[in-house]
């Protein structure tokens, strides 16, 4: 069979087009699943009080290698506790010594699967420590930006990395080699007050842990955001890892969750809507009012607050606020992408991780009583 040059060229063009399309997103080709097989109507939460430590009480719990770590974001300490809440040791702290953090705040942090830890300061400065909190490396994140201020101002191109920054209140997750984190644009001409943001913004960043190079910003908001400016008040992503290669992606306004690979080729969407959620969102088209409106919306409306995948039990948790009046948040539990529980939990409850046989929540600090407590629970 004879194949002409034109035929080869045609096939290459089609192939390139398909490849480009799949890298932008393939939301429209996904079939959805809202499978539900409820196994648990309630979960019993045990309160666990951590041993008293000198802390700013601004921080949170992370779990690594069967220990609880309280990350003090102001003092930059890392307190290690055993699964019963007994104090073991204190590491790091603000300062300029080798194993201290020369930063004002820890803005974000993550433990790597190998037990190393990564801390982000206030100025895109990254610090990496081994399992004993000896410093391995530090560097500034390299966004590869050579654009001038004028170029950036006049060219609000959603494909360019310089458009984006960390979503500091979001979460970041790490393999042993890569860091994934939500990003958002605050550009004056491209931000969540502008309708085109829904379709065009990138939502995630990928960084090489070895050198701080941001490989790419990628992924798109789900179709829910494309034509409804009001949903853009919650126009950002939440991310976790199901495997080294599979990302779990969720959005505060979208009942569905998505599985994507590192190029954001989506393979599945699933999820069930939370209960009693007030989703009549209101956004503004004035950037000066965005902050105020966002605060109001978070206090009055229902939205998904976090996702956490626990690989040890292959269980996925998703939390949600219901509305401004509810005394509880909701917690959904998925196994094999099927909803197996949707229960009430304290407001602002999140799942931090798993140390057999318990799942552990985030921390709840009371600086007046100088107590840090968390919850633990089993699924049974």
């Amino acid at each position: 069979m004879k194949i002409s040059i034109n035929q080869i060229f045609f096939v290459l063009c089609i192939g390139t087009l398909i490849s480009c399309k799949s890298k932008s997103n393939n939301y429209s080709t996904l079939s959805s699943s809202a499978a539900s097989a409820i196994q648990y109507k309630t979960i019993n939460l045990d309160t666990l009080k951590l041993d008293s430590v000198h802390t700013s009480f601004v921080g949170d719990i992370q779990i690594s290698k069967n220990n609880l770590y309280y990350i003090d974001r102001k003092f930059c300490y890392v307190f290690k506790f055993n699964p019963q809440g007994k104090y073991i040791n204190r590491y790091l702290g603000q300062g300029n010594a080798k194993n201290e953090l020369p930063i004002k705040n820890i803005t974000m942090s993550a433990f790597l699967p190998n037990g190393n830890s990564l801390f982000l300061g206030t100025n895109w400065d990254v610090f990496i420590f081994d399992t004993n909190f000896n410093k391995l490396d530090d560097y500034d994140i390299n966004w590869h930006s050579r654009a001038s201020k004028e170029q950036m101002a006049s060219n609000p191109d959603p494909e360019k990395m310089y458009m984006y920054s960390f979503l500091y209140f979001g979460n970041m997750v790490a393999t042993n080699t890569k860091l994934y984190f939500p990003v958002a644009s605050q550009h004056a001409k491209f931000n969540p007050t502008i309708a085109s943001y829904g379709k065009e913004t990138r939502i995630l960043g990928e960084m090489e842990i070895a050198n701080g190079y941001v490989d790419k910003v990628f992924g798109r908001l789900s179709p829910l955001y494309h034509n409804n400016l009001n949903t853009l008040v919650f126009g950002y992503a939440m991310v976790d890892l199901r495997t080294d290669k599979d990302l779990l992606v969720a959005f505060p306004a979208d009942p569905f969750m998505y599985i994507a690979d590192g190029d954001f080729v989506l393979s599945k969407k699933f999820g069930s809507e939370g209960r009693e959620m007030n989703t009549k969102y209101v956004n503004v088209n004035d950037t000066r009012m965005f902050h105020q409106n966002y605060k109001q919306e978070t206090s009055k409306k229902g939205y998904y607050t976090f996702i956490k995948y626990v690989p040890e039990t292959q269980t996925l948790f998703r939390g949600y606020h219901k509305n401004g009046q509810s005394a509880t948040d909701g917690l959904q539990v998925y196994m094999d992408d099927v909803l197996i529980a949707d229960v009430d939990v304290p407001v602002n409850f999140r799942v931090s991780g798993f140390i057999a046989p318990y799942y552990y929540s985030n921390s709840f600090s009371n600086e007046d009583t100088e107590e840090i407590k968390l919850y633990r629970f089993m699924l049974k």
Partner: protein
Amino acid sequence: MRRKYYLIVLTGLFSCQQPATKTPKQDAAFKDPAYLTELKFLNTKVEFGRVPRDTNLTARYLFVNTGKKPLIISSVLPDCMCTSYKLSNKITKPYDTGSVVLTLSTKEKVGPVQLYSTVMANTTSKMYALKIVANVK
């Protein structure tokens, strides 16, 4: 780095960041137990309730050197550029008192505000958090 200063501020989405302030170099004496003292803040939180925008809120925090060595406050690090501070005395003798005054400008603030400042001193605890709470109308 240049683009950081270009981006507009949607402060609700992004935490209140302050440019590249590093902690000051700590004197070796801060690590030497022989030079350490004890510090007690009489208050660490000031609540203002509802306040208007474009206001300066002034919060005063009193402290006592309850140890036996001179107290040296090496730094006061507010959360953001909206807050400035004044320290009554950098060195406080044993059993003497002093104060930290924080002034918060509510100019760019709206809604509930919680801002921290971290105080570093030559004590065993080393760091202390001072808090301003307000609800900007």
